[in-house]
């Protein structure tokens, strides 16, 4: 198994080695959805690095031996292990593979995003949130490698280690994949739900977006514009255009910075109707591909092209579906249904 795998070569079935995020981006790429190109530093890359660490001093054994209730011990172990992940040498073949992939991805020094990509369902749980590291607008190979190490190091955060111990997750299987993806200088970005987050309605698509990078929307720092579109009909039934005071943009030295929006654009919708309909098309394709409703992160580049940054299955309403009763039981005589109208049974 290589230390690096390109999006175009992996799919959701590769989750154990490329993580959920990496597998999903690979799956979308393979399905022909416009996803900014990128690669995954696989769990094999991590395992080889970890083997080198273990060779100098134990790692997993010390985590396994930790008392999860001893916060002091956990804190000092976390500091030690994370320092080692950042500082100790990486096996040459791993580092070369990552740097070669980056050179191919970013031949002109284009910025990338570096994100942790957890390998188990549990790891996507909210309580595991400490693992979801994201570094935006990362410039240069050295910086990229440093961010990959930080993602790995997050496995040894206090929260992450104590979570594993409390849930008796064997330390031996614990690994982390990292996604490295070309970064979109987004004109606007946001999220899309292929079923209504408010009512669970599968016949509509809800889109939220704001100016600049999507991080402002995901982190909740800006109230996004909000639209509801008929999934099947394309009609736009809700248009809530908000006052978007600020946007997040790339910082010249790397990373992102928040700037105030000019008055002229604050209350302007960040998407045109044709762009909304293009997003809807992409949302439908992804939903059809997976066969279930999706939560999607998207961006529009400066030329207005729709790009997909992330897609994951919607979970809240999917769980409710499992308990849902039929809307109306079928009737031997279909005419009995009209009694709801005429005898008052179904009146709101």
């Amino acid at each position, binding site marked *: 198994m290589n230390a690096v795998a390109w999006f175009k070569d992996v799919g959701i079935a590769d989750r154990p080695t490329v993580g959920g995020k990496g597998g999903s981006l690979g799956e979308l790429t393979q399905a022909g959805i416009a996803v900014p190109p990128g690669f995954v530093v696989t769990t094999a890359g991590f395992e080889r690095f970890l083997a080198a660490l273990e060779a100098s001093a134990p790692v997993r054994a010390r985590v396994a031996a930790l008392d999860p209730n001893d916060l002091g011990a956990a804190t000092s172990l976390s500091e030690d292990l994370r320092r080692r992940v950042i500082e100790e040498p990486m096996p040459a073949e791993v580092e070369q593979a990552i740097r070669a992939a980056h050179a191919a991805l970013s031949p002109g020094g284009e910025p990338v995003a570096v994100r942790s990509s957890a390998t188990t369902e549990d790891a996507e749980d909210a309580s595991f949130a400490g693992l979801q590291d994201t570094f935006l607008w990362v410039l240069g190979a050295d910086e990229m490698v440093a961010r990959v190490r930080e993602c790995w190091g997050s496995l040894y955060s206090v929260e992450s280690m104590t979570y594993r111990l409390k849930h008796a997750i064997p330390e031996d299987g614990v690994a982390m994949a990292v996604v490295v993806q070309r970064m979109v200088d987004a004109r606007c970005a946001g999220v899309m739900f292929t079923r209504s987050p*408010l*009512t669970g309605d599968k*016949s509509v698509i809800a889109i939220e977006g704001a100016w600049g990078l999507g991080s402002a929307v995901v982190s909740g720092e800006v109230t996004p514009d909000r639209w509801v579109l008929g999934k099947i009909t394309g009609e736009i039934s809700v248009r809530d255009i908000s006052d978007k005071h600020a946007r997040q943009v790339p910082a010249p030295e790397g990373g992102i910075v928040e700037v105030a929006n000019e008055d002229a654009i604050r209350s302007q919708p960040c998407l045109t109707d044709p762009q909304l309909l293009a997003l809807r098309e992409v949302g439908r394709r992804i939903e059809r591909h997976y066969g279930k409703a999706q939560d999607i992160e998207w961006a529009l580049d400066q030329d207005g092209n729709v790009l997909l940054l992330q897609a994951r299955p919607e979970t809240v309403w999917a769980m409710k579906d499992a308990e849902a009763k039929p809307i109306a*039981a079928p009737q031997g*005589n279909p005419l009995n249904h009209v009694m709801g109208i005429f005898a008052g049974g179904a009146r*709101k």
Partner: protein
Amino acid sequence: MAEKSFPLPSDLKVVPGTEAAQAAYPYYTQFVPEDDGKFWFYNSMHFPEPMHHFDMITAEAAYVALGAFNTRVHVLPTAKGIEHRVINGRVYIGGVAVTDPAEIEERIGEFQQRAFYYYEHWERLYDQWKVKMKALIADAQALPKPSLPDYEPLETTHTGKGVAANHALLDIYQKQIEGYHRMWHHHFEFLLLGYGAYMTFFDFCKKAFPEISDQAISRMVAGMEAEIFRPDEEVKRLARRAVELAVDRHFTDNMNIDQVLADLDAVGNAGKEWLGELETSRNPWFNVSSGDGFYHYHRSWQDDLSLPFAALPGYIEKIKAGTNIERPTAQLIEERNQLVSDYRELLGTDEDRATYDQLIGLAHRVFPYVEGHKFYCEHWYTNLFFNKIREFGALLASHGFFGDGGVEEDVFHLTQFELESAIIDLMLAWGIGSEARGPKHWPALVAQRKAAIAEWAKHPTSPALGAVPDVIDDPAIVMLWGITRDNLDTWLSGGSEGNPNELKGFAACSGVVEGPARVVKSVAEIGRIQQGDILVCQVTNPTWSPIFQKIGAAVSDIGGSMSHMAIVAREYGLPAVVGTGTATQKIKDGQRIRVDGGRGIVTILDDVGMGQARVLEEV
């Protein structure tokens, strides 16, 4: 919510100076003190303007028939008929609910035996209905024009007829009144059952897809072969024939129609052939009212060719440019079926899919009636009816009943009962050889009522009266008027929250368009509509559809998302907001407005009204 309520009926005062005109409406339509205990709402959907005294017959005949079918024919379990009252020319109505559980139970048993039979034999009964309706129309067409010769024709004596011409007046009048009432019975024979089946599917969709738009549901149900599309199809056919016969140059914007008809008659065979085609189209398809058919002044294409003729130049131009103007029926059916199957696919369980199939099946079965009946009832028959009354108007006017400047239209200021008395007055006078009393009696009353209607039109009236019920569960009121508790709360709040330049209505067809408003109050004004204008009119009606090719969007005061206008707008892909209540009052001709047909919002942008229409969102 703060306790708010509508004024009581007894709070409503007759506008000073119009008391006599008010008193002339039938006694059983006057509010009485006991009416304060009941909830009423203004039927602005069917009767948006103060009622001429004769036109009250439309309310009366409709409520006679609606009540009979709800209460005693189909036996709706929870609702009987609709009561109506008139004050200041405005028609208020209120439902009669059944609340006693034992009575509801009994009525459920009756209803299932009766209504279910209709549903099960729908196609056969509807075919039979069309035969009945056409026979009724033929009867009305066969009624002679009322006239009084100086002497009875010799034939009367030689054949021993034994009945004189003055008797024919009463005979024709009573037959016509009887026919109008009968038409309204036919009208309600299927209507509630049809709406009920549609509403059942509608409710299911709203539960399965809480954010589905009304339009999407309508599109799944709408018929493709309905009679309402036919008049417009006939105009297209006439445009095509004009090109084929090479007489198309006669049809220009703002043409003088009488001149065109005379010219065509004079230019030889091709012109005559086209006139023959016109006659074919006119009978029956031009028997469409330019309004909803509820007022005598909603004239038909048959009586006023300006609407179809205004559409001819545009269609001709398109045909010559090689543009296809045919309705793509097969494609529309395909789209409808696709929509039905796409929504079906989203349902979560087999049970829901099975129910969905049952309900859409039933809705498709009943809908041809819901869409089709209007052509026969409100358009064709009503048009014949009012024209027959107009003939009596002409006869009475010629005998001086409406004074020196009297015209046939004055007859509509008499109630149906007064008109019968005037006819008997004339019958007496003709028979006796004396002067009728009418010429001294009616002119003052007509003048008084004309003034009253003009005065009433200046006074807005409360949308409802009396205490607000907790729930509106009368299926007839919900289905026919779209009245819900939510509507009432909006009315109570005055509907004034938010932007004063914004009007809300039903989202009829999505798309956003900005352009100059053309506020058109009658068909006579349609010549003013320019390419790209936004049509703002009071009543939306499929008979306006030929001008949809010209306009950028449409807005109306009255109509719901299943109104015929909404259906036609969707066909043309024309952004439309219907049922705004006040668009023709609030929007000034030439103002720039934005129509958002997806959200049902019309925004007044400025007073300038310059510039071209701009399409902001493709339909």
